[in-house]
């Protein structure tokens, strides 16, 4: 027996011994992994679910892009129709004799200005709240940023409630589960079988050994994540259109993986049985993925309940109708107060045209009413979201969920910003309409093109 292993390299006393030991553990972990069918199947299922989720997201992205292209084509068609009227020296379609495309109001109508919340190509990573809101809207002087057409696309509410299986879902809920399956018997199996002391005697530090083993699974999952992100990025051209979003997704998903790894490490480092490991990890997952977000959701709906938007519906109906009921003199005085500059305009002197100009200016008052009604509604949004943000101190899953949504531009704030852009375009259109109408502007094809150009940029 003497002499065995004499030629072997003993690096126990080398400086890099710990590092080499970790590398050895990492290398061997592959064997542990592949010989556990449960773990392999779990990882494969995760990959399958993620790929499915990526395709689901890409499908929604493409559907929305197609819709945008479809509407743009219709916009262009309607504009061409209007340009044809100018060319043929016509006021409008024969069947609609009241139309006059040389008047600013009708020219703006035919300019068919739509504003889109064009989806980010990174949307496939996280559908977020994209299915809760509309993403295109025609800008008219009577439009508002809370019109009915800004509600969700036609969808099965049960699907919305169950939630679509997008990549973010796989990341947020399935990734911790896969990690759990990878780690549930680490440390605990050795402890249960009684050879953990042997491991300690061999490695000198059990935590180092456990950390090294975990590092393998963290690395494995990180590589899988990276692969999935790259695969997804190629589906919709993220590298070309939203390269930064790719980096951000990688950053946040890596951080999320580290969060769960850290948490699981703390839970399993002193476990003595597989059952206690599994219980603790499943408990943590239930707590962070289910209980805390659901409690916050319930709490928010009690403390800051989402209302029936009565302020808005009052403005859109009752208050506007009350404006209609006002005597002309009062209504006109309000318009003059709102736009003092019209007093000196050319039309102000023309009694006949003045009536039409007042009529064309009335939407400005409607718009003001709606805007005023929106203020408390958006304040309530802010308060509610503030409450949710505050909860992220102890609600990490919701925090990461919203981070993913922000990266992929499918966050609540993205749609709120979109509403603000819409409002700004509506304001622009109203102001231009009032100014041009009172100036007595006769719209020419070049003015028409200018409308398209100027009134499309918020």
């Amino acid at each position, binding site marked *: 027996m003497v002499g065995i*292993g004499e030629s072997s390299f003993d*690096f126990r006393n080398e400086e890099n011994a710990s590092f080499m030991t970790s590398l*050895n*553990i990492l290398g061997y972990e592959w*064997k542990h992994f592949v*010989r556990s069918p449960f773990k392999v199947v779990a990882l494969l299922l995760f990959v399958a679910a993620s790929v499915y989720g990526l395709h689901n997201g890409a499908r929604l992205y493409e559907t929305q892009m197609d819709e945008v292209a479809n509407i743009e084509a219709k916009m262009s068609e309607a504009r061409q129709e209007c340009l044809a009227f100018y060319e043929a020296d016509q006021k409008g379609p024969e069947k609609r004799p009241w139309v006059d495309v040389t008047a600013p109001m009708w020219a703006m109508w035919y300019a068919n200005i739509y504003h889109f919340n064009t989806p980010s190509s990174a949307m496939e990573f996280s559908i977020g709240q994209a299915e809760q809101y509309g993403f295109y809207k025609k800008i008219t002087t009577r439009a508002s940023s809370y019109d009915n057409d800004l509600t969700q696309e036609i969808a099965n509410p049960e699907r919305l409630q169950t939630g679509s299986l997008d990549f973010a879902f796989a990341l947020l809920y399935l990734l911790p589960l896969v990690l759990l399956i990878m780690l549930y018997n680490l440390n605990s199996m050795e402890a249960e079988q009684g050879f953990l*002391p*042997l491991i300690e*005697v061999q490695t000198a530090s059990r935590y180092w050994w456990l950390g090294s083993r975990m590092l393998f699974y963290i690395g494995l999952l990180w590589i899988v994540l990276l692969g999935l992100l790259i695969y997804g990025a190629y589906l919709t051209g993220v590298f070309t259109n939203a390269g930064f979003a790719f980096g951000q997704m990688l950053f946040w998903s890596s951080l999320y993986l580290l969060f769960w790894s850290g948490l699981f490490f703390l839970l399993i480092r002193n476990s003595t049985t597989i059952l206690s490991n599994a219980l603790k990890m499943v408990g943590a997952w239930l707590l962070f993925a289910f209980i805390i977000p659901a409690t916050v959701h319930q709490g928010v709906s009690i403390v800051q309940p989402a209302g029936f938007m009565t302020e808005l519906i009052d403005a859109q109906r009752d208050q506007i109708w009350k404006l209609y009921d006002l005597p002309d003199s009062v209504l006109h005085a309000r318009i003059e107060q709102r736009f003092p500059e019209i007093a000196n305009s050319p039309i102000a002197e023309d009694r006949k045209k003045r009536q039409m100009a007042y009529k064309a200016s009335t939407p400005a008052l409607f718009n003001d009413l709606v805007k005023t009604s929106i203020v408390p509604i958006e304040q309530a949004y802010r308060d509610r979201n503030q409450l949710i943000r505050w909860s992220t101190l102890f609600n990490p899953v919701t925090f990461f969920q919203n981070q993913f949504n922000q990266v992929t531009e499918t966050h609540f704030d993205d749609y709120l910003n979109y509403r603000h852009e819409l409002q700004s375009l509506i304001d622009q259109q109203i102001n231009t309409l009032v100014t041009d109408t009172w100036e007595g502007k006769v719209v020419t094809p070049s003015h028409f093109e200018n409308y398209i150009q100027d009134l499309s940029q918020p």
Partner: protein
Amino acid sequence: MIQLIHAFKSFKGTPAIQDLSLQVNSGEVYGLLGANGAGKSTTINMLLGFVQPDSGSITIQQMDVTKVYKKVRATIGYIPENVNLYPYLSGFENLDYFCRLAGLKYNRSDLQAFLTSCGLPKEAHRKKVSDYSKGMRQKVGISIAYAKKAKVYLLDEPASGLDPLASNELSDLLKKLAAEGAAILMASHDIFRVREVCHRVGILKNGKLIQELRSEDVTTNELENLYLKYMKS
């Protein structure tokens, strides 16, 4: 060399080890006999650095276990009562893995030689440990300790559950290791095996070393009678 001097340990006020002093020299096998709960495992755990003594000194190879336990562990070969290794790895792979954990990298033939010299037949090297008998697993456990080229071996009931043949092979192995200069402490309640393999025997009761004697000074029957006398008293 293994040395305990006036070691004390209690758990929640119940004394587990009381004023324990013993020494195991290089080339010596020391048997620690005692009933369940006598303090054998606590002694081993203190030597491994898993349990801190309340007082007293514990050294291995002149190193204070309580202070440099990581360094001490690198010199120890430990064989638990049940060597339950990774069932989905072979004996060969388990040995390789545990060697790597200790920072030791051996080539294939060395690893095979360790297993063979510890009594594991060659045809079993590549079989999964889940198919091994307890004796075969124990041999892998010994080869793990042996491959570490340890100077000190701590064995906690190593022969428990082994068949007579495997138990006999274990005795031979321990004798060989001692002959190579190792200091071996073996906790057991197998009087026959202890008498046969150990140079010295200590009887532990309620955490106290109540008798220490040389194996060659007593027959197995005498040792048994002595042991029973102490246990009944």
